């Protein structure tokens, strides 16, 4: 069983590199065939990389501090099986205030998942990343404050049933 797990993990790790190599191999010939579009894509990639870098640092500092100061027992109490309302509030607020691209948050989420945080709270966290208060003035200026308020509140509230239902679907095993 352990060997099978290790083999699967190795396959997954290999896939990461194959995917990257395929993308690089595809990009360069296309760059020389369509230099203008290639430059546009390269520029977009560089901009995204620069955007990700500070967020990466923040996330890894959070991970370091959490692993150092918060033990598994506390985490399970806050966002584990019996967390209740506290767990929902933490995941909704954390989702709203979290910044940076989602890629940088996955390692932290995996770490939390391994430490016993329930999937329902991680799903709610991800959904609430869709609420960005710093962009709310733009939303209000385009769609009005009443629409914006209803939309953002609905999104925050709906993340609770989404977390519960999706977690049940993830855990559901087809029994013979």
């Amino acid at each position: 069983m352990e060997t099978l797990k290790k083999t699967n993990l190795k396959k997954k790790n290999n896939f990461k590199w194959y995917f990257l190599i395929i993308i690089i191999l595809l990009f360069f010939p296309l760059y020389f065939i369509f230099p203008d579009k290639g430059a546009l894509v390269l520029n977009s990639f560089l901009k995204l990389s620069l955007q990700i870098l500070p967020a990466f640092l923040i996330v890894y500092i959070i991970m370091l501090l959490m692993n150092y100061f918060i033990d598994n027992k506390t985490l399970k109490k806050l966002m584990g099986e019996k967390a209740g309302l506290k767990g929902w509030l933490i995941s909704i607020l954390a989702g709203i205030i979290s910044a940076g691209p989602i890629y940088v948050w996955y390692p932290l989420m995996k770490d939390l998942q391994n430490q016993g945080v329930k999937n329902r709270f991680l799903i709610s966290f991800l959904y609430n990343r869709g609420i960005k208060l710093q962009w709310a003035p733009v939303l209000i200026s385009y769609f009005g404050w009443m629409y914006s308020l209803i939309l953002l509140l609905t999104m925050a509230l709906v993340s609770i049933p989404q977390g519960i239902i999706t977690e049940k679907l993830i855990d559901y095993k087809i029994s013979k």
Partner: protein
Amino acid sequence: MTLIPKSVYGQIFTGNLFFDPIIGSVLGSLLTGNPITAYILGNGFLKAGISLIAVTAFMVSWTTVGIIQFPAESLIMGKRFAIFRNISAFLIAIIVAIFTVFLLSII
């Protein structure tokens, strides 16, 4: 996304009140980026006569569904996690859109 002109997105909608929210949610799921981009595009769609429900579904799925990020999410969080989370977020985008516009109409 970098290569497709923004004006093309608006031409995808049909004007059908039933299908447009689904199209909005599909389009929002396929694209990714900062929420502000979705708001700007959504405002443009609204001005082009696309229904508020479709525009809302588009903006919500833009920020909550991640087809582009799916390989990374699946690799790190697990395949079942990524599949079910994205499917539920896609469907919920349509429900949120209907509910938001309904509430707005009665308040």
